[in-house]
């Protein structure tokens, strides 16, 4: 177990592509950190630099107190779970788990004890004599996990370990990884582009965009106070509604026309206003003005079972927004509705930079 410290870490591929642009993160001992962001934002690159599989262009990575920039992957005391599992195809499951221990000269009975223990925890005891090709995707995934935990390393590194599993298995393994990490208390860095996985697993989220950190924080903090429009639209599903607004004498208004009203909160003349689908209420016409009130026309209703999503068009030809409504609600296409949001649920971002405006 150890802390991991990244200090302005940069990665430039082939002198041209800057995949990671000076990232600093302090990871506490035993913490579960999730790196999340869209494809190509540099998550894998960052993780692979921690693993030692990729050179660090500039900056410094420490595991514990030791700077590991020039330490071989095998000597960093980390274990990694790969997206395609990367099991050794010519070895049995037992040997896949034992390989990393044998190479470090561990005694046979200690290896056996650890392999059996990991197999018990992960319920792969029945397959120990099989080769990986005789296992299902889910079983391979468990073996890959097992290979990491037998090592009892200072840190686990995961690169989208669940993305090759079907939806149901993914949820199941997600819960299991979380439980396992809580009981082992091993510092973990987990890469995913799935915001739900990120939210549920993380002690702290690191949202990456184009090689930069957009925001670091506990999942609920990131959800409640997204630092930018990028984070706002990336975390939460369906994504937050983002509306371009201007201000006039009466307060907020759409740039394109009527349909929106509310008080100007920060005394500026342009904003991007954000409100999550779950924070919009359909209210009877003529209700008292809220922090944000919208008039809209229903396009479609999309039931997903536990709830439904209502897609509606604001004002005359304004932006389309999404509203979460209860599952059996009934709306007709073309129906006129009034929506309101409370002050604490409306986020304001700088119209040019997209950064959050607070206070």
């Amino acid at each position, binding site marked *: 177990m150890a802390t991991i410290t990244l200090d302005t870490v940069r990665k430039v591929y082939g002198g041209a592509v800057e995949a990671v642009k000076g990232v600093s993160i302090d990871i506490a001992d035993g913490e579960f950190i999730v790196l999340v962001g869209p494809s190509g934002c540099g998550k894998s690159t960052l993780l692979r630099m921690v*693993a*030692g*599989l990729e050179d660090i262009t500039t900056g410094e990575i420490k595991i514990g107190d030791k700077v590991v920039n020039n330490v*071989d*992957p*095998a*000597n960093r005391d*980390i*274990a*990694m779970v*790969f*997206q*395609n599992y*990367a*099991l*050794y*195809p*010519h070895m049995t499951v037992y040997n896949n788990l034992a*390989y*990393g221990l044998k*190479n*470090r000269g561990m005694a046979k009975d200690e290896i056996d004890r650890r392999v059996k223990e990991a197999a018990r925890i992960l319920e792969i005891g029945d397959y120990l004599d099989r080769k990986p*090709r005789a296992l299902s995707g889910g079983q391979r995934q468990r073996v890959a996990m097992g*290979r990491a935990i037998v090592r009892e390393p200072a840190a686990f590194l995961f690169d989208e370990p669940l993305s090759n599993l079907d939806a149901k298995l993914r949820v199941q393994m997600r819960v299991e990884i979380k439980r396992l990490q809580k009981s082992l208390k091993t510092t973990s860095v987990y890469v995913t582009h799935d915001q739900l996985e990120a939210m549920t697993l993380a002690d702290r989220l690191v949202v990456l965009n184009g090689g930069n950190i957009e925001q670091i924080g506990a999942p609920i903090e990131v959800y409640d106070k997204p630092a930018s429009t990028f984070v706002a639209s990336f975390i939460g599903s369906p994504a937050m509604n983002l509306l371009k607004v201007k201000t006039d004498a009466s307060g907020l208004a759409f740039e394109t026309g009527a349909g929106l009203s509310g008080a100007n909160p920060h005394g500026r003349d342009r904003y991007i206003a954000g409100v999550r689908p779950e924070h919009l209420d359909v209210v009877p016409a003529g209700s008292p003005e809220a922090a944000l009130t919208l008039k809209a026309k229903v396009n479609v209703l999309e039931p997903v079972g536990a709830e439904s999503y209502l897609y509606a068009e604001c004002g005359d030809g304004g932006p389309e927004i999404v509203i979460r409504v209860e599952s059996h609600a009934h709306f007709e296409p073309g129906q006129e509705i009034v929506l309101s949001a409370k002050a604490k649920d409306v986020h304001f971002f700088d119209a040019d930079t997209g950064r959050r405006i607070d206070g």
Partner: protein
Amino acid sequence: MKKVQFDSRLTPYILLLPQLAIVAIFFLWPAAEAVRSSFYLEDPFGFGSTFVGLDNFKDVFADSNYGRVVRFTGVFTFCVTFFSLAIALVLAVKADKVIHGSSAYKTLLMWVYAVAPPVAGLIGIFLFDQHVGPIVKMFKALGWDMRIGVNYNDTGFAMVVVAVWKQIPVNFIFLLSGLQGISKSVQEAAAIDCPSGFRRFWTVTFPLLAPTGFFLLIINITYALFDTFGVIDVLLKTQPGDDPITLVYKVYQDGFRGNDLGGSSAQSVILMVVVFVLTVIQFRLIERRVHYN
């Protein structure tokens, strides 16, 4: 795939005919002829032949020189196979580290395959030229006066070196593509699991290369046994005295130089059996060839 039906039931056979004719004329017929004449004693001047049963075979096995040639062929085949594979493996591992899947390099390396064997053969033979060959001169400077085509061991050594030299490009290309076929993330997992690069190679890379290796092993044995005829012939300048020769060369020597068609045919029948056994082994291996996915 769409299944095409021929109008006439004869068409497929007509289409196959040229290939079948080639097999018949250039393989089956000579083979049958060899088997037939291995049972006859041919008159050296071409005035008919006498049936002698298995006498030709008995003569072959009784000939002490034949044993000597078998031994040399064995040593030669082992050395050529071992060294051409080992050297090619070292080169392929080094190249694999550099090219990292860059296709430009791969295309360049294919040229080695396309151009090298004949040219390499010529260069190799030049290197061992008795009068101007740099290798001969080098060894002379080191105190080894090589006498190619005269001294048994010197000639054998030169044969092995030229044959190995000629085969390296072929092995290199196959081994390199085998190495490139090994999953990158498996190698990365090994980099995390195993501190020693040497050990990592023997426990992960090498076993994953085994299917390619088995295949090449058979290819190389066949090469050393049969395809080295030209190299040997040039080095011996078609005047083998007390020189090392392989079984195939002996067939040629006895049949065309010694005019002993019967004995020579008996020897080629024995070689056919060897080829047959090798082919069976190869098919078995390919069938069982481990497919890692």
